[in-house]
């Protein structure tokens, strides 16, 4: 009697010819499969469409054809949204009403507790854990508007983690952040990756995440031009979005079967 073949792992996210845009006009179209545990950098110049792709895969802008699946389920019927944490490309909006770091991070738990749910001991522990992960333990009761720019970015990461997210989708987490805060953020991402959290990171360049990124996806003009190990790039890219990418990192997923355009030797 033969052993049944093991089923292939269900990808964290799977895009097949997925188009995204605004008011019915496609701004980016992508094929992309990310497996659990990967650290995928979406690289490209400003306006290349990399942020459009992640906003599209999260359902934040119009989905205009093709397929988007999270954990094997079509996006429209994917209910366990807390498994995906989103970190937008900005600091926390300067709110007219004060809110403590604890309150902001706790809002990342709302999807878990439900619309009419109340925060219980387990939720408070998860929030404390998320804040500890980003190293802001001592600022829990501080109004977020008193945090520095770098600390606010870390607060956004904590908010995304608060729901015990298995995957983080981050939009330019280092943009406008000073060198010291970049190092602190990069250390946080390194720890998260080491603990098996999948990271999908929009970056201008790999920079602080060199050695952490396991795979680069280069975007130009709303299309995937390259999908493979970091450190290589398509000749047709307008500039080098991956100048510090490492080499020889293992990566998984079906992206290897797709044609690569004009790879440099």
């Amino acid at each position, binding site marked *: 009697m033969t052993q049944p073949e093991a089923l292939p792992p269900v990808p964290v996210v799977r895009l097949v010819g997925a188009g995204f845009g605004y008011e019915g006009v496609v701004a980016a179209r992508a094929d992309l499969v990310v497996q659990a545990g990967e650290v995928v950098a979406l690289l490209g110049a400003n306006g290349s469409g990399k942020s459009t792709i992640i906003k599209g895969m*999260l*359902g*934040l802008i119009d989905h205009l054809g093709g397929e988007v699946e999270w954990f094997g389920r079509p996006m429209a019927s994917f*209910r366990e*949204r*807390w498994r*995906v944490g*989103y970190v*937008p490309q900005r600091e*926390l*909006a300067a*709110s*007219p*009403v*004060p*809110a*403590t770091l*604890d*309150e*902001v991070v*706790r*809002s*990342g738990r*709302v*999807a878990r*507790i439900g*619309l*009419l*749910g*109340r*925060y219980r001991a387990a939720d408070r522990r998860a929030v404390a854990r998320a804040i500890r992960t980003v190293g802001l333990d001592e600022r829990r*009761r*501080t*109004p977020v508007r008193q945090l520095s720019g770098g600390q606010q970015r870390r607060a956004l990461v904590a*908010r995304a983690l608060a*729901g015990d997210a298995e995957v983080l989708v981050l939009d330019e987490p280092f943009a406008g952040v000073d060198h010291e805060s970049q190092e602190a953020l990069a250390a946080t991402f390194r720890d998260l990756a080491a603990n098996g959290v999948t990271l999908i990171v929009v970056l201008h360049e790999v920079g602080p995440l060199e050695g952490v990124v396991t795979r680069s996806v280069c975007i130009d003009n709303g299309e995937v031009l390259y999908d493979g190990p970091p450190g290589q790039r398509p000749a047709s890219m307008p500039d080098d979005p991956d100048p510090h990418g490492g080499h020889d990192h293992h990566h998984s997923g079906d992206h290897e079967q797709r044609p690569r355009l004009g790879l440099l030797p």
Partner: protein
Amino acid sequence: MSASAALLSIEVLDYDFMRRALVAAVLVGLAAPATGVFLVQRRLALIGDGLGHVAVTGVALGLVLDRAPVFVALITAVIGAVVLELIRSRREAVAEMALAILFYGGIAGGVVLVSRAPAGGRSLNQYLFGSITTTSTSDLVTFGVLAVVVMTVTVALGPALFTVSSDEEFARASGLPVVPLNLTLAVLSALTVVISMRVVGVLLVSALMVVPVAAAQLVTRSFRSTYLAGILVGAVVSVSGVVASYYLDTPPGGTIVLFAIGLFAVTLIAQALVRALR
């Protein structure tokens, strides 16, 4: 309590109309900042003004049809709030223009309609400038029910409303029903406007939703404490404004709002002094 304070409070409470006015002041003072704190957080502090103006059309329609003006105003304000929110959710770029059209259309509709009402424009004044001392027992029941609905919903949906008011994009990425939550807040705003218009008048409705929150946030550090301090400030300035208006013979609505602004100004100055002395 000092003898003079006791004397004042007893005299105020001697009259039925003042007792009803004080109960109405407490209800409105609690409900208006409870909604206002989320509107301020969403940077929609002035939406109360727009909805107040739509309510004027409702009041005028009620007067023309000889139906309960408060009830008709409630319906028109809710419809206005929902339409505005749906426009905002689909075309954010035109939301401000839509608010302006609603704002002017509401007051213009009210003025034209009321000219056809049997009592003419006289009855409209009590809604434009407030008329808390004419609050009837049935008004109090209506205000009470609406205030309980507003407070219950803002507490029950507090975490979700905070999330969507703080960061709508993140709320959507988290899978929260953003449009229904925003519609809920819009309807709560309409309810609050209708409760408040008899107390401070539609021209000052937004003040009672916003100024107590503005005063509270000067001394608070968290959203929760701002919510609690806001409704406390709202209730205190509403009651003290009504009492003061009785003795000063001033319009209660304007007096309440001036008390709220005065408290804001005093807190701001005190805060600046404390900082300077440190």
